[in-house]
C-alpha cells in the first residue's frame, strides 16, 4: 500500500506540474483529491490494515494530500495571475494621448492687481468705496476746485453725455462723495479703485483705464504719513527695493501736491 501511495504521489505531482490550463488542473484535483479520487480510495481501503499499519499509512496519505493540495493551489494561483495579466494586457492604452482637462478660468490681470491693492489697504484699516462712473461735472470737477474754464481741465479732456454729466475722468470724484456723505465729520480712511475715462487714445493711452484713489482725513496727518503709506504700497506692489521720490506738482484739489517717482526694475527713475 505504501508503494501505491508513493505511486500516486509521483504520478500526481508529475501530472500537476505539466498541467496546461485551469480546467485540466481542476480535473486532476477531482482525479486525485475528489470524493471519488485515487487518494480518497486509498483511505477507504485502509480497513484491511493492521492496527500498527493504519496510523502510518493514514499519516502518509495526509502528508501526500497536503502536498498535492499545496501544489494545486500554487498552480491555480499561477493560472489566475496569467489570466489577469492577459486580461490587463488587452486593456493596454496609449498613455500619451491627451488628458481630459477641466479647464480652470482666470482672473483678469488688472483685477488681480486691484484685489492685491485692496487687500493691502484693507489690512491697514481702509474701507474700499465705490462711486458712479457716469458722474456729474459738479463731483468730477467743480467740487475738486476745477471750475469751468480752469486750465487744468485740459489735462482731462472728457466724455460728456450732457453738459452736466460725464464719464468720470478720475476716481477723485468719489472723494467728494465720501466727504459729503460723512455728516458726522468722523475720520476717513478709504481707497477707491475704479475705471476712469479720458478723451484721448493713442499707442500709449487707452480712453478707459484704472485708477486707485486714497483719502485719509484725520487730525495730525501730514505729508510724512502720505509718504510712508505710499512707500508701503509701492514696496508691496513693485518689490522691497523700490525707492520713492516726491516731486512737487500741481493738482487743483490738493495743496501741497506731489507726484511720486519710483525706481523701476531697471533702476531708472520713472513716473508713477
Amino acid at each position, binding site marked *: 500500500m505504501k508503494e501505491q501511495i508513493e505511486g500516486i504521489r509521483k504520478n500526481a505531482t508529475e501530472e500537476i506540474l505539466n498541467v496546461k490550463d485551469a480546467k485540466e488542473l481542476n480535473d486532476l484535483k477531482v482525479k486525485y483529491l475528489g470524493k471519488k479520487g485515487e487518494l480518497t480510495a486509498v483511505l477507504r481501503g485502509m480497513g484491511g490494515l493492521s492496527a500498527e499499519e493504519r496510523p502510518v499509512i493514514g499519516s502518509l496519505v495526509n502528508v501526500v494530500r497536503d502536498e498535492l493540495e499545496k501544489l494545486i493551489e500554487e498552480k491555480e494561483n499561477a493560472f489566475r495571475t496569467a489570466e489577469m495579466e492577459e486580461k490587463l494586457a488587452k486593456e493596454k492604452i496609449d498613455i500619451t494621448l491627451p488628458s481630459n482637462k477641466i479647464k*480652470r478660468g482666470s482672473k483678469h490681470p488688472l483685477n488681480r492687481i486691484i484685489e492685491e491693492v485692496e487687500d493691502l489697504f484693507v489690512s491697514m484699516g481702509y*474701507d474700499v468705496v465705490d462711486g458712479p462712473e457716469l458722474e456729474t461735472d459738479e463731483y468730477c470737477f467743480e467740487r475738486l476746485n476745477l471750475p469751468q474754464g480752469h486750465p487744468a481741465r485740459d489735462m482731462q479732456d472728457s466724455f460728456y453725455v450732457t453738459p452736466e454729466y460725464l464719464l468720470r475722468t478720475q476716481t477723485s470724484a468719489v472723494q467728494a462723495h465720501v466727504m459729503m456723505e460723512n455728516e458726522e465729520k468722523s475720520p476717513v480712511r478709504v481707497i477707491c479703485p475704479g475705471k476712469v475715462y479720458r478723451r484721448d487714445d493713442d499707442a500709449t493711452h487707452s480712453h478707459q483705464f484704472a485708477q486707485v484713489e486714497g483719502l485719509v482725513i484725520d487730525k495730525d496727518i501730514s505729508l510724512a504719513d502720505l509718504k510712508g503709506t505710499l512707500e508701503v504700497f509701492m514696496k508691496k506692489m513693485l518689490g522691497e527695493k523700490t525707492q520713492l521720490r516726491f516731486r512737487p506738482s500741481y493738482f487743483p484739489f490738493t495743496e501741497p501736491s506731489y507726484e511720486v517717482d519710483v525706481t523701476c526694475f531697471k533702476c531708472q527713475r520713472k513716473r508713477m
Partner: protein
Amino acid sequence: MKLSTNFVKDYIDIDVDLKTLAEDMTKAGNEYDSAEKFINATNLVVGEVMECEMHPDSDHLHVCKVNVGKETLQIVCGAPNVRKGLKVIVALPGAVLPGDFRIKAGVIRGIESNGMLCSIAELGLDSKFLKPEDKEGIHELPIETPVGEDPIKLMGMEDGVIDFELTANRGDLLSVLGMAYEIGAIYDKKVKEVELSHSESNENINNNFKVEVNTENCSIFLAKKVENVVIKESPEFIKNRLMASGIRPINNVVDISNYVMLELGQPLHYYDADTLNGMLEVRMANEGEKLTTLDDIERTLSTEDIVISDGNKAIGLAGVMGGLETEITENTKNIIIESAIFDSVKIRKTSKEILRSEASTRFEKGLDANRTYMAIERSCNLLEKYADAKIVGGLVKYDTTNLEDTKIDITFEKINKVLGLKIEKEDILYVFRKLGFTYEVENEVVHVSVPKRRIDIEIAEDLIEEVGRIYGVDNIEGRLPALPLKEGSYNKTIRNIRNKMIDLGLNETLSYILVNDKEAVKYSTDIFEAIKLLDPMTEERNTLRYSMIPSLVKIYEYNKARNQKDVSIFEIGKGFYKKDDKFGENTKLCVLMTGERNSGLNTKQVDFYDIKGITEEILDYLGYNGRYSFMIKNLLPKEFHPYQTAEINVNNDIVGIVGKLHPEVQKDNVYVLEINLDKLLEKKTGKMKYKEISKFPSVKKDLAVIVEKDVTSEEIAKQIKKLAGNLLIGSKIFDVYTGTGIAENKKSIAYSLEFGTQERTLTDEEINTILEKIIEGLEKQGAEIRK
C-alpha cells in the same frame, strides 16, 4: 515752454550745465521734456573755399579745396552755390550732425572727400525757420568771418534749450523773467533789473488817441504810440533767441513784440497806427461777426469772443490773434502798442474753438498787471534801440487791476505740521527770501507779502507747498499714520462671484464700456434711452452700453477672427441707462460661451444646458437655491434664439437672460448669460438648513412618461411631486427620447424617482400605491406611461 539759457542768463548769473539745471528745476516741480543744445552738432569749423572745380564724373558735384585754418581739406560738395572765395561751415570728419548723422572721410565717385560743407538745415534748425536759400544750398557766412573758428559761436547760436512741461498753475513761468525768479529761488541768486529806459517826445498820445473798454472781460488795457520805425531784420541775438524759443523771426518790429512776450510773459499787439481811426475799443463780438486774422483766415465769431474794434468793426481777436487789416507791414511807420489783460476763461474758450496761440496760452493762465506796464516800457526800449523808433509821450490807460502784493499769514508750526518736517524758523524764512517774497515775523506768525507775479499763490497752503518745494521734500521721512486699528471693508460678494466664475472655468475679461450706438440698444427689451456721447472720438465707441453683451461679443469676434474658437469668458461691469430723464448704472454679470469648454478627446461643444448650469451654480452659490426658475415671460430680444433662450426668474422677478444668440446675429453657436447683479442681490435668499442622511434605505423606481413635445419637463416634475406627496425625496431625469416607437409630436422623459422617509423602511406595497397614483394622475392629464 522752451527756455533759451542765453536769454535767461540776461537776468541771472548761473554756472550750471544744462542737464543739472533741468534736473534741479524738476526737483522744484518743473518737469522738462528735453534739455539740448540749440544746434546739436559737433566738430564744425569756419572754412574758406580756396579752389572749386567740377567733379570729373558728375554734372553737379564740385571738388573743393577748403582752408579750415590748420590745414586745407579736399571736400566734394553738391550744393549749387558753392564757389571759390566763399566762407562756409565745414563739418570735419568725426562730426556728428543732428539725427546722428556722422561725417566720415570717404571717396565720392572716385574722388577723396574729407568732410562736408553744411547748409543751415543740416545743423538741425526747424524747417519753419529756414529761408528759401537755406533749403537750396550751403550756408554762406559773411566774407569777414575768421577761418578756423567755431561757426555756431560766431553766429550767436551757441545756446542750450530746456523744453519744460509746466503745471497748469505756473503761468508765471511762461516768461524768461519768471524762469529767472524760479532759478534764483533754487540757487539763491538775485534777479537783475529789466532794462526799460528810453526817451520820449513831448507830445501826448492822449491828445489824439483813445481807448474804450466796453466789457468786463478786460481788466487792463494800455496803449502807447511810437513813430517813424524803420522795418528791417532783427539783430542776431533776437532772431536766435526767438528761434530757440520756437518762434519764427519776421522783422525787427514784430520780433520785438514776440521777444517782449517771451521775456516778460505779457503778450503784446502792435498795430499799424495809420490803419486805425484814432481809437481802440474792447468789446464782445457780435454773433456771426466776421474777422480776417493775421493768418489770412476769415473767422466767424460769437458773443463769447472778446474783440478789439476800431470803433466800427472788429480788427483783432483779443488775446488770440490780431487782424490782417491793421498788421505791421514793410511799409509801417507808426505803431500803436497794445498791452492788456483779458479774462482767462473767455480766452480759453475762444482759443479752444478758434485757435491756440502763444498769446492765448499766456492769457489762459493769468497775468500780473505789473508786467502789462513793464511790457510797454520794454517795447519802447527795444524799438528805440533796434527800430529807430521815436516814442510818443503819455500812455492811454484803462486799469481796474490790483497791483498790490498778496498778503498771507501763516505760522511756522502749521508749515511743519502739514509737511511732516521740523524745519527751523530761519530756514523757512530763508525760503521766502529766495523766492523773493517779503515778510514780517510777529511771534509765531509770519506775514508774507507775495508779489503779483506769483498769481498762483493765494492761500496759506500755497506757501506751505512753496516751502516744501524749495526746502526739498526729499527730506521728508515717511511714516505710517498713527490711527486706531480696525479692519477695513470691501465688497466681498462681487469678489466671491468673480472667484466662483473662475472656478467654473471662465476667463475674466475687461472690456470697454463705450460701444457703437446701434449695438448699445441690442440684446435687451428693457425700456431705456441709450446714452450717447456729445463728442465721441469714433463712431465705433459713441454710446454707453446698457447690456454688457455687445462688449463680450466684440471680444468673442476678436478671438474668432484670430482662429480662437473656444471662448468661455465672463465679466462683472457696469451697464448704463437713462430713464425718465435720470441717469443710472447697474453692476452686471455677463458670460459668453462657445466652442469647447474643456479639453481632451471626449469633449463636446457647449450647449444651452452648459450655460444654464453656470447660471444655476452661481444662483445656488449666492443662496437662491429653490427660488429661481427659467421661463419665457416677456418678448425675447430679437438677437436671441427664440426657442433656446430663457429669462431668469428669482423670487418672481426677472433678473436676467440666458440663451443662444440668434443664428442671424452669430453664425456659430454662441451662448450668453446676463444677470443684473444690483437687482439680484437685493432679492431674499434662502437659509441654509442641516439635513441628516436617512438611516433607512430608500427605494428607486424608474418612470418613463410620454407627452406632447411642447410640455416642459418641469411641468411633469411638478405634477409628479404633487401626486407623490412627501415620501418622494428625489426626482431625476435620466433620459429624454424622441424617435422610433414614439409619435412624431411626442417625447418620452424618463424619471428616476427616489422614495423614502427618515422614520422607517418603506414597503413595496406603499411604494407601488404611490406609483399607481402618479401614473393615474399623469394619464388623466393626457400623458402616456411607457411600459
